[in-house]
């Protein structure tokens, strides 16, 4: 199991480092979105709830881009068949794909969060660890939900249409938790102590759901 996960994860990372496609795409999208927000909101800087909203909407939409690309190579180049032929647990693919999506999201945020701080944020951030905690918990949740949605949508003809339609409603509870948790960082109202737990519960539930149903998406 660990070896299979490692192999698939290393393969995905190697594909991405040789021909960077997903991460630069997501990062570029995020920066463009900040520019769009600047003009759409007609504000030089944002703060408080608005800042948290702008950041998280951008991250979520960028994540949707990554989710849509996640299984494309596997489908087009026969990666699914190769994996199914290998005598390994199918959960390994879920874990590896979720891990690679998680790493891609971290890479995205390494670019997008500093860009946001420089380009849009008005007040200097306080209690920065809150944002880091929110990013960590949200990335975990996005990784599980995204892998599930990506695998669901990749077999359909309307893949690019379905991914956002499926992913955005599913991610709304996560978005709620993330903005509540990170709003104080940008000078917003204080967050209740329960939000990390809500996010953790979300991660746990969708991790278990993904684990339970993912096998059925691979049968052929």
């Amino acid at each position: 199991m660990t070896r299979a996960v490692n192999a698939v994860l290393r393969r995905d990372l190697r594909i991405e480092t040789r021909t960077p496609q997903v991460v630069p795409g997501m990062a570029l999208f995020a920066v463009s979105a900040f520019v769009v927000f600047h003009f759409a909101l007609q504000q030089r800087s944002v703060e408080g709830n608005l800042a948290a909203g702008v950041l998280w909407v951008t991250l979520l939409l960028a994540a949707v881009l990554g989710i849509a690309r996640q299984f494309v190579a596997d489908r087009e180049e026969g990666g699914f068949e190769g994996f199914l032929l290998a005598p390994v647990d199918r959960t390994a693919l879920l874990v590896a794909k979720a891990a690679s999506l998680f790493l891609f999201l971290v890479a995205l945020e390494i670019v997008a969060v500093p860009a946001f701080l420089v380009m849009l944020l008005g007040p200097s951030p306080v209690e920065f660890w809150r944002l880091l905690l929110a990013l960590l918990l949200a990335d975990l949740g996005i990784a599980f939900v995204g892998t599930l949605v990506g695998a669901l949508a990749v077999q359909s003809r309307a893949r690019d249409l379905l991914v956002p339609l499926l992913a955005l409603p599913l991610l709304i509870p996560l978005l709620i938790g993330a903005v509540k948790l990170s709003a104080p960082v940008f000078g917003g109202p204080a967050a209740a102590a329960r939000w990390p737990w809500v996010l953790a519960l979300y991660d746990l539930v969708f991790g278990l759901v993904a684990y339970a149903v993912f096998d059925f998406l691979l049968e052929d």
Partner: protein
Amino acid sequence: MYGTRLRAFSLATLVTLTGGFALAAFYAPEDADQGFMQKILYLHVPLAIVALCGFVFGAVCAIQHLRTGESRWDLRSYVAIHMSLIFGAGVLVTGSIWARASWGHWWVWDEPTLVSFLIVFLLYATYQPLRFSIEDRDKQARYASVFAITAGAFVPLNFLAVRLAQSYTHPRVFATTDGGLEPRMKVAFYACLLGMALLYATLWKYEMASKNTSAQIKALRRRLAGDEVPAPRRSAAPTLESA
């Protein structure tokens, strides 16, 4: 097999639902604050409860489908979600009317239950596009079941998150400190809820009967005409392999 007792179901629905609405209209007292408008409660809330239960029922059928691999479970799940979507549209419309009447806006964001319901509705609205865009019949059924289970797990989580996100909530009709609904209102409400559940069950049975009958007709026609039957139109609905 689904055609049995349809008449009994229809009659029971008719009687209970009319009775429930009659109780709501004439027996239950008018609400002190909202007056006559509050009576939409007897339509809106049962619709919502039944629609949500229908989604959960769809998820349970989907679990059965994945476990057994029988296409009739897929059909049950499909029809349940289909019906719940229709009920859900009714919930959003009646909720919107109620919001307009009591708060003056067609849509209010600080009513967590209604907002959660909208999110759930939006999620389930992709069920049929998802089915429709997967051509392989087997895959379609399996993927739809995976979706139904995921969405089923999402429903309670979503309600929790949206509920917690509200710093202030509107006074709730049920969970007030002095015991909630007045007893006569409660009687009318439960009658309406029962009627609505029966309506859902009846419509579900009708739809199942119709789907099964057309599958049987298709099978018979195929047997009569051999391979000359034109290929069926592509649809999101599951096909039963001629029972």
